[in-house]
Structures are given as C-alpha cells and as structure tokens.
C-alpha cells in the first residue's frame, strides 16, 4: 500500500523533499513505516525522537497504530526561529 509523507521545516531540508509517497507493507504499523523512512532518508535521524508526528493531521500517539492505504504521515520538527 502507499502512504503519503509530509516533511516540514528542518525535516524537509534533511529529506530534500516536502511531500512524497512511499510503498509500504500492507497493515504496516507507524513504527515500521517510520523505520523505512529513516532508512530511505538517513539524514532524518537528526530529528528522530525530537519532533511531532501526525497521521491524517492528528498527533500520532501510538507507534503500533496500523496505517492504511492513503494515510498521510507528517513529520513536524520544532521551529525555533523568531
């Protein structure tokens, strides 16, 4: 199945892309998808564990959550500039 990835701010810089789609295993959990994301874009390790993750515009509370086709996963590191 395919899920949509949205990278914001520093994550977009590190991944070099703002929006993309990835093919993941059916019934993959959020943890599995994010592991795959880190393998694809290793530079994102810098923000791993230090950003808000959201699925379909809602905070991702449970990394064991099973994603479904077309889900939108957003990686939202904090911005500190002002």
């Amino acid at each position, binding site marked *: 199945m395919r899920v949509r990835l949205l990278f914001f701010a520093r994550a977009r810089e590190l991944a070099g892309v703002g929006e993309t789609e990835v093919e993941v295993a059916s019934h993959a959990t959020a943890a599995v998808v994010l592991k795959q994301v880190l393998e694809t874009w290793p530079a994102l390790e810098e923000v791993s564990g230090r950003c808000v993750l959201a699925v379909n515009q809602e905070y991702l509370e449970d990394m064991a959550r099973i994603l479904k086709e077309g889900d939108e996963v957003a990686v939202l590191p*904090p911005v500190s*500039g002002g």
Partner: protein
Amino acid sequence: MDGSQDALVASLRAENQELIRRLASQDSAQQYRSDSTVPQAGLAWEGCGLTGSQVARYSRQLVLPSFGPQAQARLCKGSVLVIGAGGLGSPAVLYLAAGGVGRVGIVDTDALELSNLHRQIAHQEVSVGKHKAASAAVSCRALNSSIQVIAHEQGLLPGNALDLVSAYDVVLDCSDNAPTRYLASDACCIAAKPLVSGAALGMDGQLTTLCVAPAGPCYRCLYPQAPALASCRRCAEAGVLGVAPGIIGTLQALEAIKLLTGVGQPLTSRLLLLDCLSTGFRTIKLRHRQPACIACGPHATITASNLASYDYRAFTGQPFNDAAPPSISLIPAAQRLSVQDLASRMQPASTRPSNQLQPNQQPAAFSRPHVAEPEASNDSMIPISRLPSADFCASGCVAAETVPIGHQQANSCNPLPEGDEGQGAKGFDSASQPSGGVQSSAGPLLLDVRPKEQFAAAHLPGFVNVPYQGPHKPLPAFLLELCHPSQSVNQAPGVSSVLPSLSASEPDARIQNLELGLSQTPKPSDQCEAAGEILVVCRRGNDSQEVVQQLRSLGITGAMDIIGGLTAWSQSVDPSFPIY
C-alpha cells in the same frame, strides 16, 4: 566631504529624527492620554467601564457584535508579556498596543541590527544599535500612549522567568532560541499562564497555544527531547522571509486577545502550520497534557523552587540567544592565513609592498553579480568539468566566478582601475583578456564555500563557489578530482569550452592534469602536489576550516583557511564588503 564629516552628518540627522519623533510622541500623548475620566453613574453618561477616549479609540472593535465593549474592557484591563521583540514580537506588540491591552511587557536583550528591519517592524532605522525592548516600547507608546508599556531589557532568564510571567495574564513566546522556549513554557506551567508559542524560519511558520488548563499540553509535552543543535537554524544562516514571522506574530496577538477576552476558541491542543510558498495553512490536532511531563504533569520535577537553577543551556546545548556561533579553532595555525595575507596574494606581485593595505586601497572589490540566479542543483557531486558551465554562475559572471583554476586569479591580481565602482565588472571582463605580469605562474585556487545565495549576493573576484554541505556530505567531486582525476571529468561538456581559452595563453598544471586523466590516471600524490595552494574562505572562518581539514585529509597539502572569513575581510581589508 570626507568620511568623518559624512559620519557626523549622519549622526546628527539620526539624532534630529529621534528628537522630532520624541516631541511628536509627547504631543500626541498629551492629546490622547488626557481623558482618563470614567463616567459617573447617574451623571453625564453610563457605560461598561471604558473611558470616553477608549470608546472613541476602540470603537471599530467594540461595535463588533462578536467582540463588543465588554471584551474591550477586559482587554483594557488585561496584560500580556511578549518574549522577544523580533520578527514575531514586532507585529504582536504593535497589535496588542493598538488594540488596547492595558499593559504590555516586552522582553529582549538584543540590540537592533540593520538586518533585522526587513521583518522586525516595531523598530525604526534610528534605533539600530539600541535595545530592541526599549525600541519596541517606544513604537508601542507612539501608537497608543494610553496603555502601559514596559521594556524588560534583562531578558528572560531562569532567575527572573517566574516573576516575569507571573506578573502578566498571557505570555507570548516570540523568542528565537530553544532554551528560551523551554524556559518560557516551564515558567508558564508553574505560574499557570497560557503561553502562545509562535515560530518562523525560512518560509515556514508554526503556532500553538500551550499551558491552557486543564488539558492543554506544554512545550515539553510536545518536544520532551530538545532539538539537535543542527536543527536549530538561525535566521542569519537559514534566512527568513519577513512576512512569515509577521503572519505568525500577528496570529499570536490574535490568540492573546482571545485568551484575554474569552472571545472565540484559542489554538489549544492544535498546531497551526504556515507554508508561505503555497500560502497554505494546516492544523494538526495535538495530544493533551502528558501525565509523565516533568514540567506540567502531576509529578512535575521542574518547580517554582528549582526553576532558577535548571540548566537550560545544558539541556538544549544552546545559548539563550541566536547569536552567531563562536569562532572555532579546528586546524593548526600553520594551515591558516589572515585576510591581509589573502589580500597580498590577490595583489599583483609588482605592487605588493607589504601585507597591510592602505585604508583606501581595495585589492579586489567585491563583485555584485547583476545576473539571474543559476539553477539550483541537487547534485552535491559536481565534477570540475561542470564548474565553468552555468551550474554555479549565470553567464554574466562566468569568467570571474567559474573558471576554477589559475587564470581568473591573474585577473584578480591585475592592477585595479581607479574608483571602486566597476572593479568587479572589470575583473569579470578581463578574464577573457588576461594581461601580463602575473600569469607566469598559476595563482592559488580560490574557493568560497558559502551557500550559493550568499555567494551571489557578494563575493570576491576570482573565487569559485563550492558550497560546503556539512561534514557528513561528500566534498564536491571536482575537489576530489584534484587528487584523482577520472575519465568522466574529461567527457563532460564544460571542460572543452573552457580549456581552450585558458590553455591558449597559459597552460595550467592542474588543468593539464585533468587532461592527463583522459589517457591515464596519475598517482594521487602527484596530483595532490599539483593541486597547489588552495585558499578557502567562508562567511566567518568556521566552515572553511572544516573544508581545509577534509582537503588535507585527502592529501591536498596546499589547502589553507582564511581566518575569520569574509567577515574579517570586511572588518580589516575592505569595509565596503557587506557583513550580513
């Protein structure tokens, strides 16, 4: 008129403007502050507690059905602490003052810089060099003399944060650094004050309202781990479109007004994202307050009694400001040259009396490219053969910027024409018609490792732009080619267009080495030696050291760092080169 007279006139003009402004401010204050009378019940008129002048001043929002005089009265009695008088804080304090918030506190320790003014609109040119908190306070008072505006110039620190936030109803985080963000949040948790957290960088903005009882999360609930240092990009490095913090700061003022008046729904447990490129807004639903949070959870370990001793620098690894990173000393002094050394190398040998330039002597005027921006390239591995093409420079400045080796250096060494305008252009033009004197030997290879945007804004003639991508990104292939020329280099189209013009007048050993690569692969050691002297410059002299270290680790022993970079160049050699 000499320079000192110019400076005197400029100083007097600024002082005059400031005095005129103060006078106007006093006049208007006398005019608009005089009416402090509250209507007496049963006498002339009755209202909701607003003075006559307040009714007149705020009439457009108190006739608003969804706002009304009661909300205005709450606003006039309310207070807001704004942490940071920069890009976010500027519009925030102006709108809060204009809208009639009774007491506005402005916290900032920084002095205003010219490069702040494109976004920090609460300040004026005359305030450059002055405290931002005081400058923003002056603007607020000029806008509305009937409210109380307090400048807190000592800044937000662990020792004063609790007292400061406790003295206000609502707090806005308009700061520019991670330690302040955590401190503001922790203090608001303890003091039970709502915190409107805004942030903006580049083309992005974020906004959320934190610490709202009973379930609203705090900053630590969202980001229990501090961001890595590399993630905390500064406006000075990453850039920021002025409007981006302007929009977010304006929305912070809106949030404060809603929180003070009870009108509307605050952005609690929601994160608003702004994308200026698409003018798009997204809202992410956030989680609630976390029971395990060390700042706002039921078992919080950050408390009123220990907040002052919490080490925010250690927690975030960053200082309480977004000042430029300190100078590093990564490589031995023998691998570094002063900007005066660079200047002497950029002068013709025949006119090189000493390393010290005369005050009015400009060995190489910086270049102001007047050409279109080159296409961005995602390819960090750029072969040398492509450098002379349009990858790094548009056509108007190809000669000076992109001929990587030797000959364009001869141009920088040419005696410069009189007058400083046009020197850069002259340097460009002369690249195709090299003159004698300094061509007998190839000069150093001059590398400018700043991002291409900064290079395009201003650079020294003769320098090639090779943006440094950080320690984890490979050096551009063409630098590696200096040691290990490959066949592919010579097959690329750029070389053929450049080599003839260069080798027609003077062959360069390093280019010959590239030609050698067509038929054979020379020993790396030969190539490293042939690479000759490579002078590396950046903005402040930190990245350039890392590049020199990498080059030397590859055996390129001629790599030298320019101490202090172009900032030092501007300070010590050519003040006309812009510091930014």
